[in-house]
């Protein structure tokens, strides 16, 4: 696997609470999952995806976790067309 360069914008993951460490009053489905944190920052050591790394966040805090994503980006969208909406408020519907 290729090394990710120092200073690259990456996302790490931390297990904040294991299932058995979680809050006492949780619904059954949630109780069985770990409580996870994802956060982005600049990689502080050359390393590979899956390794434990330190990042420096945009406000300068150093945080440690498993390197998950290189150059994390947003790709949320307007979604696929919902035909049910198209005619609302138009002549076609009067």
């Amino acid at each position, binding site marked *: 696997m290729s090394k990710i360069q120092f200073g690259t914008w990456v996302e790490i993951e931390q297990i904040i*609470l294991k299932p058995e460490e979680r809050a006492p009053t949780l*619904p059954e489905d949630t109780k069985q999952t770990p409580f996870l944190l994802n*956060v*982005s920052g600049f990689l502080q050591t050359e390393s590979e995806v899956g390794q434990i790394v330190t990042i420096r966040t945009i406000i300068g805090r150093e945080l440690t976790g498993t390197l998950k994503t290189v150059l994390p980006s947003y790709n*949320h969208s307007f979604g696929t067309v919902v035909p*049910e909406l198209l005619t609302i408020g138009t002549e076609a519907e009067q």
Partner: protein
Amino acid sequence: MNRDMSYAAVTARKNEIMKASLGIDFDEYITSPIAFEYERMMDQTGYSHTEIARIQAETKVGNTPLFELHNLTAAVRKIAGPGKGARIFLKDESANASGSFKARRASISAFEAMKKGYKGMIAATSGNYGAAVASQAAQRGLKCIIVQEVFDSRGVGQPEIIEKSRACEAYGAEVLRLSVGPELFYMLLRTLEETGFFNASLYTPFGIRGVETLGIEIAEQIRARCGKDPDAVVITHAGGGNLTGTARGLLAAGANNTRVVACSVDLGGLHMASDRDFNRKSFTTGHTGFGVPFATWPDRVDVPRNAARSLRYMDEYQLVTQGEVFYVTEMLTKLEGLERGPAGNTSLTAAMTLARQMDRDQIVVVQETEYTGAGKHHNRQLSFARENGIEVRRGDPTESVPGKSIIIPERLDQVRGKVQDMDRLRRSYLKNAAKALPVEQWSENDYAFLAADIKKNVDWVKENLVS
């Protein structure tokens, strides 16, 4: 120093963490496990309305436009009875920096944090408030951390919340993105302790006082335009701060006869802390999953006593379905030429049903809008619902089941909403108060506080105590 960072230990340090991160000693106002000196706490924020407006103007908050929605009013009049169909106005809060009324709520906290010398501020929120805090912090030269509940155990994020993560990062904040669960609060406490930053909680007096200018502006703008006070102001209700702040502002402006109407999307039956239900909701806020519990027990928040106390000010509470809101959102876009996000459109939906019952010379105000865009657009909310196995179709919205189906009305006359029984909510509040302190131990002071907190008198409280 090696502190115990377990869930139980950090949660147990809540009071000391809060005191250090807020600069408010709540013990000074608390008089019993139920009661506290609410008005004195609000007064002692130390800001007049003039000062609040000045601070807000410095950071591009407030003085938003008020639009009359002529075409939606005409559409309502077509289906209303003779003489019915009130004028509908809309306060375009999307014009605030960061695109929602939440900028008002963040602005005074940011000013206070700067004034008191904090290096940064933190808020736990998955809503517009995150972007608002980030935007205000950026303008005041403060660092910012936003703690968000974003994704389920499959790693799938709610599109609307992903957009909010993006907005927070765009304004320069560090965003702690968490999986589903109420331990968001634990993470907030941990981060406050680690950083020593200011706690920009949604529920402090600073947050609520910042919203008061919204109520004042509505009263002043409607008076200038129509020569009278608004008959009703409809407010999307979740945690209660929007309603509390706006209503206090209306009262401060002397609009004492304006009906304060809460409105939430009905998500009855879905569990708010459920990993599975998380992505079966098409609304991330402004819904009953927050609106009802926060109305019936405000002190369930990240500060010792909540400055947002909605039943103190609420006259009515309307529920609408997800499908009705999507229908009205599309009408606002096509008929009024305004593309806006879901929060304000929830109250617009209720305003349309109210306008239909009100007289033509009456005035109903939709008190906010929010920005829209990728992820938080209603088309994305619906396509995401479909991807998660929710049935989406046109038809009678009363047949919809939250988490299973979204039924978009076929005609405007199917947008009807539903009225919540306010007295049932008030009794539920009293029941919760009895859990905090057994009724036998309530003092006269407690009774007086509870009566004021549900907008009733002491006799009503005594008559409505159900064991």
